[in-house]
């Protein structure tokens, strides 16, 4: 079953061709998009989220062209976490997470007990319940990132698009995030994430390797061809090793 489908998608950002005829089918599970800086990973995720206009090609969500989805329906179907989560204003953590219910509530409906329960659950999952009454500008970058993640979880969408969700997170919270994503996937949510940390990405069910606006390789995390493609796009600066039952990407520092 294909959840998201990109067919021959091209995007130009100014003079730069950010995506060049990209085709990708996202299936249930956790898909991680990796690649060097400027590879087009975030642009592809923004295309999936309906936030980036495409110059050519087609994008489908659950078999229906993305452009045909009413904005609110689409927002209920997929939640998006931005790469550099902005947050200004005077909202408390709980109020920010509550915004995740906006697609269901719209501008005028009153939140129900179910909405409040969903907000509580999202904050508990992202481990930010303790400071729910603090304001966003009082938090560190990592804490803020967890709040914004909770906001995305509060949508309760079947598809989560996470652009660099581990930004600002310390190692214990990076691990917690991976576990959270795995729990979400077990519960039936499809997750697509852009990740810079290759060792974390190698925990995903399926990896997509991008470079220069194109998909170079894709496949399950154990696929040797995928590992070779990864080493190649990072110009041999990494090595991939299996330690215990996990794949790890390590910087290759020897000459």
């Amino acid at each position, binding site marked *: 079953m294909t959840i998201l489908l990109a067919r021959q998608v091209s995007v130009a950002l100014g003079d730069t061709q950010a995506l060049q005829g990209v085709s990708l089918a996202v299936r249930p599970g956790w898909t991680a998009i990796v690649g060097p800086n400027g590879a087009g990973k975030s642009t592809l995720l*923004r295309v999936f*989220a*309906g*936030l980036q206009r495409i110059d050519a090609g087609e994008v489908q969500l659950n078999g229906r062209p993305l452009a045909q989805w009413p*904005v*609110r*329906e*689409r*927002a*209920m179907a997929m*939640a*998006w976490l*931005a790469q550099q*989560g*902005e*947050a*200004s*204003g*005077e*909202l*408390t953590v709980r*109020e*920010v997470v509550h*915004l*995740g219910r*906006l*697609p269901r*509530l*719209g*501008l*005028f409906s009153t939140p129900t007990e179910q909405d409040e329960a969903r907000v509580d659950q999202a904050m508990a999952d992202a481990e930010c319940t303790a400071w729910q*009454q603090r*304001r966003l500008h009082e938090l560190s970058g990592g804490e803020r990132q967890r709040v*914004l993640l909770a*906001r995305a979880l509060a*949508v309760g969408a079947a598809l989560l698009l996470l652009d660099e969700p581990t930004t600002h997170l310390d190692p214990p919270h990076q691990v917690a995030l991976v576990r959270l994503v795995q729990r979400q996937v077990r519960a039936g949510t499809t997750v697509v994430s852009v990740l810079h940390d290759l060792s974390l990405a190698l925990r995903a069910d399926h990896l997509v390797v991008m470079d220069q606006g194109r998909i170079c390789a894709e496949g399950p995390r154990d696929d040797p061809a995928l590992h070779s493609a990864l080493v190649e796009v990072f110009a041999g600066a990494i090595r991939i090793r299996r330690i215990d039952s996990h794949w790890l990407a390590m910087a290759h520092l020897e000459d």
Partner: protein
Amino acid sequence: MSEIDCQRRQRLAIGLLLITLLLAVAGLAAGSEGWSLVSLAQTWSGPDGALIIGQIRAPRTLGAWLTGALLGLAGATAQGLFRNPLADPYLLGSASGASLGVVLVLAASVLGGHAISPATADAIARLGLVSAAFAGALLGVLLTLTLARGAQQTTRLLLAGVVVGMVLSALSDLVTSAAPDALRGKQAFLLGSTGFLGWSSCVALAIGLAITLPLNWRMARALDALTLGVESAHSLGLALPRVRLALVAALALATGLAVSQAGLIAFVGLVSPHLVRRFAPAPHGFTLVASAATGGTLLLMADVLARTLIAPQEVPVGTLTALLGGGYLIWLLHRRRGS
């Protein structure tokens, strides 16, 4: 909502209510000899008491509060919409548009039969200053929207507002250079005044507030979502162009009404949301309503001061709000630099 936040909001609401009530009494008592409760009682029991208090001071007091409330609401809306705490309600060209409208009417009476035909001059003059200012303010915002090709992009909207403001101001200067007698009227408009507010003004202002306050309040969640960034707000299912257009329309109505009735009142729209956020930080649902109440209180305070500081003469109320508001912002800047 935490208990502290709840207490802060309650304190602000009660404080504003009490200050407003005191200022309302002061507004009724303020006359050409300054103000005192004794003189209020004397005036009330005097032969012209009903006229002076009922027809002059009461509508002026209420009108000043309503004008300030519209500006406070517009300021909070503009700052939320443009995600900029320095956004001013006039930045979409309403002030320069209103100014041009006023100047055109004033110039028409001078130029009638000379530079323009008497019929045209008569038609313009019949508009009246208030209608001309209102129409000019709406026209200014409409031009901004046209130039920005709608309300899809806030940056484009802001730039268009600056351009329209400059062009309409230049046109206004051009008209006054052709009809120098209109200059004094324009200056009076730019200084702002609550002196001409009557019951009909109060009705117009109250209707404006009754339309814009609930409309903006209903959009508060959209403004909250915008604090997370435009793309996040979009991903939450908000039809941003429509939301922006509705808010810009409310902004145009609020500022258009305020400037047409009281001229250019500076800083009330800018400072009110700052004060609210300082005393009771909250989501936009509360900030919008509290900014309206704060704006009303501020302008009422400025009005009372304007009438009593150098009585029997009056200080232009716009000058006072500029001094008080500017002083507050300088203090805020100094305090932030210090911290």
